[in-house]
C-alpha cells in the first residue's frame, strides 16, 4: 500500500507540475495570469483528436500541429487582447477568463462530448515496480515532468532568451535599456506557456477522455499549485505539486477519488487565508523566480 501511494503520488504530482508549469511560466515572466490556460489545454487535446480522427493525420504530426496552433493562439492572444489592457491586472484576468470561457463553451456547443473523444496512449503496456503495475503512459508523465524541469532550468540560466525571461521578470525597465523588448518577451511567454499547456494535454489526456470539464479542472489545479507554491516561483511549483499531489492521492485512496479536486480548492482557500504569498512567494526577499 505504502509503495503504491508513493508511486501514484509521484505520478499525480508530475501531472500537477506539468499542468502548472506553463501557467507559472507566463505569470513569472510577464505577470499575466492566463485564465484561458485550461481552455488552451482542451483546445490542444481536441485539436489532436480532430487531426487524428477527422483529418486522418498521423498521431505524431497531429501533436506537432497542436503545439504550433497553441503557440500561435498564445501569441495572438497577447498581441490582440492582452497588449491593449497591459498593466491593468483586473482587465487582463477578465480578458483571458472571458476568452477561455468562450473557447471551452464553444467546444461544448459544437457537441464535443462523449467517450469517443479520447487519445491513444503512446506505448501500450505497463511495467511492474515493486509489485505494482504502472502503465507506460503514466511513467512517461513522470519522466517528462522531471526532464522538463531540468530543461527549463538550463533554458532560463544559459540561453539568451531564457536570460531575457529572467531579466523581464525582475525589472522590465532595466531590461528595456539593455535592448530587451518587454512586449516581445511577453508575447513569447504567453506563446510558450500555451504550448506547455498543449504538451501537458497530449501526454496526460490519453489517460482518460477529453472533456470541457478538463479545462476547468486544469485551471483549478494550475491555480492551486501556483498559489500554494507562490505565484511565479519555480521551486514553489515543484514543492507545491508534491504537496498537493500526495494530498490528492491520499484523499483518493482513503476517502473518495471524487474528492481530489476538493483538495486543490481547499489548498487555494487555506493558503490564501494563512499565507497569501504562498510558500515561496515573491514577497520573500530576493526569491528565485522564473
Amino acid at each position, binding site marked *: 500500500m505504502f509503495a503504491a501511494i508513493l508511486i501514484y503520488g509521484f505520478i499525480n504530482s508530475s501531472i500537477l507540475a506539468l499542468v502548472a508549469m506553463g501557467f507559472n511560466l507566463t505569470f513569472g515572466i510577464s505577470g499575466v495570469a492566463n485564465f484561458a490556460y485550461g481552455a488552451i489545454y482542451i483546445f490542444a487535446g481536441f485539436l489532436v483528436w480532430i487531426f487524428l480522427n477527422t483529418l486522418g493525420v498521423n498521431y505524431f504530426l497531429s501533436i506537432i500541429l497542436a503545439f504550433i496552433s497553441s503557440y500561435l493562439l498564445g501569441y495572438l492572444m497577447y498581441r490582440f487582447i492582452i*497588449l*491593449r*489592457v*497591459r*498593466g*491593468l491586472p483586473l482587465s487582463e484576468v477578465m480578458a483571458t477568463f472571458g476568452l477561455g470561457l468562450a473557447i471551452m463553451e464553444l467546444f461544448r456547443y459544437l457537441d464535443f462530448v462523449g467517450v469517443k473523444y479520447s487519445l491513444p496512449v503512446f506505448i501500450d503496456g505497463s511495467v511492474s515496480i515493486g509489485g505494482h503495475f504502472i502503465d507506460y503512459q503514466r511513467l512517461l508523465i513522470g519522466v517528462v515532468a522531471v526532464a522538463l524541469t531540468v530543461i527549463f532550468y538550463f533554458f532560463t*540560466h544559459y540561453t*539568451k532568451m531564457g*536570460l*531575457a525571461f*529572467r*531579466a523581464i521578470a*525582475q*525589472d522590465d*525597465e*532595466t*531590461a*528595456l*535599456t*539593455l*535592448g*530587451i*523588448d518587454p512586449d516581445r518577451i511577453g508575447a513569447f511567454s504567453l506563446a510558450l506557456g500555451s504550448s506547455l499547456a498543449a504538451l501537458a494535454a497530449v501526454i496526460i489526456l490519453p489517460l482518460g477522455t477529453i472533456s470541457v470539464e478538463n479545462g476547468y479542472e486544469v485551471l483549478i489545479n494550475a491555480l492551486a499549485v501556483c498559489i500554494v507554491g507562490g505565484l511565479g516561483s519555480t521551486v514553489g511549483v515543484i514543492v507545491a505539486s508534491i504537496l498537493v499531489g500526495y494530498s490528492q492521492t491520499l484523499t483518493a485512496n482513503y476517502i473518495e477519488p471524487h474528492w481530489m479536486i476538493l483538495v486543490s480548492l481547499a489548498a487555494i482557500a487555506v493558503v490564501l487565508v494563512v499565507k497569501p504569498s504562498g510558500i515561496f512567494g515573491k514577497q520573500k526577499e*530576493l*526569491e*528565485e*523566480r522564473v
Partner: protein
Amino acid sequence: MLTVKNLMVFYENALAINDLSLKVGEGEIVGVIGSNSAGKSTLLNTIAGLTLDLKIKERRKGGERITLMGEIRYLGEDIVDMLAVHRVKRGIVLCRERHPIFPESDVMENLRIAAYLHPKAHFRKMADYTFDLFPQLKKYRRKRAGFLSGGEQQMLAIGMALVAGPKLLLLDEPLLGLSPAMQTRLVGAIKDIRATLGITIVISEQFARPVLPMIDRGYVIENGMLVLAGTGRELMENPEVKSAYFGV
C-alpha cells in the same frame, strides 16, 4: 553625434523639459547639472527612448498623457519616434539612476543578460574590461547583485551598460549616494571608459564639484530649462554655478 533641438516634454500638463537644446560631440564627456526635479532624468530618458515607451504604455491603458515635441538627432537620424530597443541597437545605452541591476541574479548573470544583443566574444571582452575597471567586483562574480553595496551595484550597472555596447553612454546620477572616495574612483573609471573605448558620455549630477574635473562641457538646467552652458572651466569659474551647485 547627438543634437537635441527645442525639446519639450509634458507629463499631462506639467512641463518637465522646456524648449531645451544641446549638442554632444563624438568622444566628448558632457555633464548635465541640475538640482532635484530639474529634469535630468527626463532628459536622459527621453534621449534613450524610455519616455516614448512610457508614453505608449500610458496611452494603452488610458493613463497619464505624455507629450513629446522637438527633435533628437543621433548620427544624422531623427530618433524622436524611434523605439527604445532600436536606439539601444544603434548604440544609445542608458544607465538609469539608483544603480539599476537585477537583484536576484548574480553578478555574472547580470552581465550576461546585458549581452542580449551581442555575440559571446563581445560579452567576454566587455566583461573582462569591466573587471579591470572595477577589480573589487571580481570576487563577487557569483554573488547575488541584490546583496552588493550601493557602490558595487553602481559599478555593476555601469559594467552592464558597457556590455550592452554603447557608442553614446548616458549615465544618470552615477555618483548619487556614494562616498567621496568611491566617487573619485568612479570618476576615474568614467575617464578610462572614454580613453580606452572612445565612448561618448553624457553624465548627470546634482552637484558640479565631483563631475567638473572630468567633463569637457556642461549644461546647467533648472525647471527643465537650460540656464547655462560652457566648458568645464567656464562653469567652474561662474559665480552662479559656484553658489548654487558647489554645495558650499
